[in-house]
């Protein structure tokens, strides 16, 4: 995966829209004893994806590291893997190690039930960040995620607002099945069905710039006309642009091809500002402070009012972006 700051598209967004209907009345899973173990340090086990997969992930990991420090009263252990089964194994290990909280950004939405049940049995509280999972809500305390469907919708709405005479779109998808891919693809698929957008090609480049470059190259070689590149993350947009540059196809503000990406990497926003790209959708990786809040509340025996917290996110247009935006929102 990559920039797929994934949340489960379907349920996540529904909850989000209504501002989290489940005013979760201190779910049973919160455990009976809220007294933290031994008082001084709170032990957290953090399971994340490998930070070198993308700029998004690097920022996310840094944020976690900066928050869960000893100075803040935490004793944190980290485990990284892009593979779901390795993550599950790590979770089992943390459970045996007896951490107080398990913070989890799952590689895959599926397959987590039994581990989380084990955690619950062992009195360990679970907080999901970045990606939701396909498991019963009672199994975790909270989930702090992005709303991918909304991100996609914002982007597609922006695209509609460009009022092009025709829409011939190269659609570069992320790893199939990831929450980010599902959310961002969903919005575009709808538009293709309802607004007559033409998808010249719809291919997964698996968050991988090299693959994106080859896919776009292939479309160029075939001579099929297109005027939009909708890439589900910045890396793939970059790969696409590299192919365009090679073939002398102009792109950016007022040029032949509109380039769209997601994640708001700093370098991507700079491209935006330079007018080489047209749109970048934000995907906010800074969840640590929210988690910190929740843990503090739980430690004080308070209840969590919203089980699902949706991150605040925007979309940027090349024509309106400012240097400030680049500095503030670039990751």
């Amino acid at each position: 995966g990559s920039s797929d700051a994934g949340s489960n598209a379907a349920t996540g967004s529904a909850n989000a829209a209504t501002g989290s209907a489940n005013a979760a009345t201190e779910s049973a899973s919160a455990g009976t004893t809220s007294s933290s173990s031994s008082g001084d340090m709170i032990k957290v086990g953090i399971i994340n994806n490998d930070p070198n997969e993308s700029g998004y992930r690097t920022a996310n990991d840094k944020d976690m590291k900066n928050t869960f420090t000893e100075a803040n009263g935490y004793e944190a252990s980290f485990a990284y893997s892009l593979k779901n089964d390795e993550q599950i194994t790590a979770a089992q290990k943390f459970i045996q190690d007896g951490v107080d909280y398990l913070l989890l950004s799952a590689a895959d939405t599926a397959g987590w039930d039994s581990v989380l049940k084990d955690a619950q049995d062992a009195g360990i509280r679970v907080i999901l960040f970045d990606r939701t999972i396909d498991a019963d809500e009672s199994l975790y305390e909270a989930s702090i995620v992005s709303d991918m469907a909304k991100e996609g919708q914002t982007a597609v709405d922006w695209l509609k607002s460009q009022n092009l005479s025709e829409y011939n779109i190269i659609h570069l998808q992320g790893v199939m099945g990831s929450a980010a891919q599902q959310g961002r693809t969903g919005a575009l698929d709808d538009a293709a069905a309802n607004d007559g957008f033409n998808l010249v090609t719809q291919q997964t480049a698996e968050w991988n710039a090299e693959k994106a470059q080859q896919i776009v190259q292939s479309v160029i070689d075939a001579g099929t006309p297109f005027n939009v590149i909708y890439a589900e993350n910045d890396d793939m947009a970059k790969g696409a642009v590299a192919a365009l540059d090679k073939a002398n196809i102009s792109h950016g503000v007022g040029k032949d091809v509109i380039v769209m990406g997601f994640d708001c990497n700093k370098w991507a926003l700079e491209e935006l500002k330079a007018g080489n790209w047209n749109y970048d959708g934000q995907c906010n990786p800074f969840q640590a402070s929210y988690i910190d809040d929740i843990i503090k509340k739980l430690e004080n025996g308070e209840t969590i009012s919203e089980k699902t917290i949706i991150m605040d996110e925007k979309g940027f247009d090349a024509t309106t972006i400012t240097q400030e935006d680049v500095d503030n929102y670039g990751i």
Partner: protein
Amino acid sequence: MSNEKKVEKGNKNFLSGLFRQQIFIPIAALIILAVFNLIADPSFFKITLGYNSAGDPVLSGYLMTILDYGSELAILAIGMTLVTAASGGQDISVGAAIAIAGSVILRVLCGTNSRPDTLQAPIIVAFLVACVVAMLFGAFNGALVAYFKIQPMVATLILYTAGRSIAAWINNNELPIVSDPTFSYFGGFIPGIPIPTPFFIAAVCVLVIFLVLKFTTLGLYTQSVGINENSSKLNGLNPTFIKFLTFVILGLCVAVAALIKVSRLSSINYSVIAKDIEMDAILAVALGGNSLSGGKFNMAASILGAYVIQFLTTTLYKFDVQSDALPAYKAVVVILLVVLSTPKVREWLSAFGKKLKQGKAVKEVG
């Protein structure tokens, strides 16, 4: 008696000779793929001359794409062939090693700033440093294989596991980006030259290796060591060192491939750069008809094998095969090609060729 001899000479006619030649396999594969494309859509072979964003002439078309994107694989196939020949095993760490070498290049170019306005060092310096580093890692693999006698696939599993982490470590997990346009020449075009640079780089590598094979005894030594280590030793060779050497050479190939890879996008993504390229490189060697258990090799066939793989990939992309389902189609084609090249089938083909020739000969006589 003399009659018999004549018949035997007749057997060695050009056609059946070709069928028996190792290089027949990749050539046949190329021809089959080409014919398939020709029938399916002749525009596959169209090459057009255009101008790129900087206004320089550029050739484009599927064939150029194949030459362009097949380059890294061809370069790796060179080193992989030697490693296979001498050690009878394969290096599965080349993808990870490319990540390391690429990371080093960017580290040297960018220094500690991940988005420098100017390059911190000349590109050639960065490249040379990467060569040294990649060769060191090659040497590490080589040492495990040659001196500790660990089987190559397992020995390189170590770097395969660690490589991408090391790459991330080198740049402290930053994702540096080079904005200097000259850096993108290596993976793109040099202004004024309409043929993609990677192809030139690959061509230079191929030329170099052929010169090396011609003017040194590398070929004989690696094959000899790969076939019979004991006997090579008694003939004054140092099998350990030769195995070691092939891994170092592969390291050099890795550095070159890494330069092209990072130059294509002027940046790096540690976890996906050159992903699974090791499998394709090994496949290239095998499609070239080389035995993966070492010994005799045919360099030209391996290099052609690399382009066969790229040809196949490009063809599949052209037909809009979903890229995550692409491996399934690739598998089917590869198996067909390999089955076609088994001795049994080739024997049959060669018999066919003989008949053809004899038929001709009879006609001529008549």
